[in-house]
């Protein structure tokens, strides 16, 4: 290793440590790390301002920003509350059906929309319904938190690691659907079955006051019906364009931002309010991480790592992919999966340059980063907010509850993913 590489690696490790220690807000830590990395790179000559700008993946940022704007607009119409009540009323208060219905609703919504938003808006309705029925909300809340992360793995826009991977590897929306969605369907079924078994006692409770549940008026929960229709049509259009992305050759970031522009133009919400709700700190965090990781890549450190593991990947691609899946899962369970994914990008890209088929490694990374987050209460932001919400109620989700339900689900879904990976390895080697 050269002196420049040692400096770059030290700055990178220090930045990561600060981000993961959570003693400093992660965006501030990442911005400081990016600035120091660029400064050191300019002084030592391994990283230029142009390279730093080029290392920011604007397609990822555009896709996230576009989808965030669409979700915020959707949120302001009361849509999430509306569908949750509609779905809950169809179950007529049966706890098992409610558990399956609300869990599945979360899976489907988080395939296309932000996981955290989905959980933040569905969980309070769940607590309301459980309180009215006099049943324990924990099985439903756990299903929602766990299945939002699981569902997010199925599509290009489902969760941030997929957005980053899709952009770096050039995988289309359709290839995510054809490669990961089938695994997610099986994982969804397995996760529900595991939770159904763990919470068999709670789910056998007899609901009281079903009449009060049926009295809930979904339409009263809806603020703006006309805007909802316009946003849903725009969102549908965006998803259709995603599906034809291969033919159209339009980047997903452009489609999402175009969709956001169309929805803003058509539905005319209070634009200041909508934009205030966009998570700018997340976007800034991504940008800064790209710059910091770009510096590490420019110094050649990530190439060194890639060259080391190239031998293993060449000798046993399936083994390397499974290793990637489980390492990604294990790390995502305890740390934020976004910095890890961003750091893995240049490594896998380098493996591709060395003539190794990197495609299965990308898929393994997406599966591990997505399913791994379910392992602990801090594994994903959706988990953190679900636990925080439940702590304001009479039935808090404790770490003990999580380790008895979330952790087994993480193991089961990762096992399912590994098995399907082995069975369909030929398919997983294609994009």
């Amino acid at each position, binding site marked *: 290793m050269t002196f420049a590489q040692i400096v770059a690696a030290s700055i990178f490790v220090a930045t990561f440590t600060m981000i993961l220690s959570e003693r400093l807000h992660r965006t501030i830590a990442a911005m400081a790390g990016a600035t120091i990395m660029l400064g050191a790179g300019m002084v030592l000559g391994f990283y230029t301002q142009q390279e730093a700008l080029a290392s920011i993946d604007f397609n990822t940022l555009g896709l996230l920003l576009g989808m965030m704007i669409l979700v915020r607009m959707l949120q302001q119409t009361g849509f999430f509350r509306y569908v949750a009540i509609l779905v809950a009323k169809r179950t007529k208060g049966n706890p098992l059906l409610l558990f399956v219905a609300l869990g599945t609703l979360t899976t489907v919504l988080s395939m296309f929309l932000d996981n955290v938003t989905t959980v933040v808006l569905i969980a309070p309705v769940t607590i309301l319904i459980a309180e009215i029925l006099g049943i324990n909300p924990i099985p439903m809340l756990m299903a929602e938190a766990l299945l939002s992360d699981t569902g997010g793995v199925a599509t290009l826009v489902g969760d941030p690691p997929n957005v980053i991977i899709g952009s770096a590897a050039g995988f289309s929306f359709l290839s995510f659907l054809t490669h990961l969605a089938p695994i997610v369907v099986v994982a969804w079924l397995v996760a529900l079955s595991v939770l159904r078994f763990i919470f068999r006692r709670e789910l056998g409770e007899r609901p009281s006051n079903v009449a009060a549940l049926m009295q809930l008026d979904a339409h009263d929960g809806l603020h703006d019906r006309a805007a909802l229709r316009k946003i849903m049509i725009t969102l549908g259009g965006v998803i259709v364009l995603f599906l034809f992305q291969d033919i159209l050759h339009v980047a997903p970031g452009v489609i999402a931002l175009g969709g956001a522009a169309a929805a803003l133009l058509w539905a005319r919400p209070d634009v200041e309010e909508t934009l205030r709700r966009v998570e700018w700190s997340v976007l800034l965090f991504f940008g800064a991480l790209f710059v910091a990781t770009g510096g590490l890549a420019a110094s050649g450190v990530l190439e060194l790592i890639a060259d080391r593991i190239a031998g293993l990947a060449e000798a046993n691609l399936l083994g390397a992919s499974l290793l990637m899946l489980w390492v990604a899962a294990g790390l995502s369970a305890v740390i934020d999966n976004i910095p890890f994914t961003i750091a893995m990008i240049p490594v896998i890209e380098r493996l591709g340059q060395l003539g190794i088929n990197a495609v299965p490694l990308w898929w393994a990374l997406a599966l591990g980063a997505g399913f791994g987050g379910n392992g602990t209460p801090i594994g994903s932001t959706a988990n953190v907010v679900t636990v925080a919400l439940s702590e*304001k109620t*009479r039935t808090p989700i404790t770490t003990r509850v999580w380790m008895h339900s979330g952790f087994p689900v993480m193991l089961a879904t990762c096992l399912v993913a590994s098995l399907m990976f082995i069975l369909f390895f030929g398919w997983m080697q294609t994009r």
Partner: protein
Amino acid sequence: MIGACMKRQVVAVSPTTTAQEAACIVVSNRVGTLPVVDELGVLVGVVRLEDLLQVFMPDFVALMDNIDFVHDFGALETLRPQDLLEAAQLTMRDLMQPPVAVERTCGLLRAFATMAKHEIRDLPVVNAAGALVGIASRVDIAAAFLAAWTQTGSQT
């Protein structure tokens, strides 16, 4: 001045008064605010009806920005045994909020604005030592203020 319109007979409680005793006081005296005073009569806190009912309030009320679509609280309308058990453990010290109070010489409009800003319905009045000397409701203060207006109105 608020000193002229306040009630001098104040139903006050001590920090060790239990929630159930407080409930009895609210029911028999029909008051909506319970000033909490220490053994020297100094105002140390205020318990509002919201604080007293907090234990019985469903969790979702605090979590949702809109509950207009909930037409029926169902079984939540009745006192739940587990909530009663929890409430039995509570004293005024657990429920009370930091007091907002004014002195006897406080103007009526300032008193009313203070209540509006702090979202309270009754305003305790204290002396220079901080001891509780009276309490005025929104209606007491507003009626005293508006009385001046009706008098000027009759003169012109």
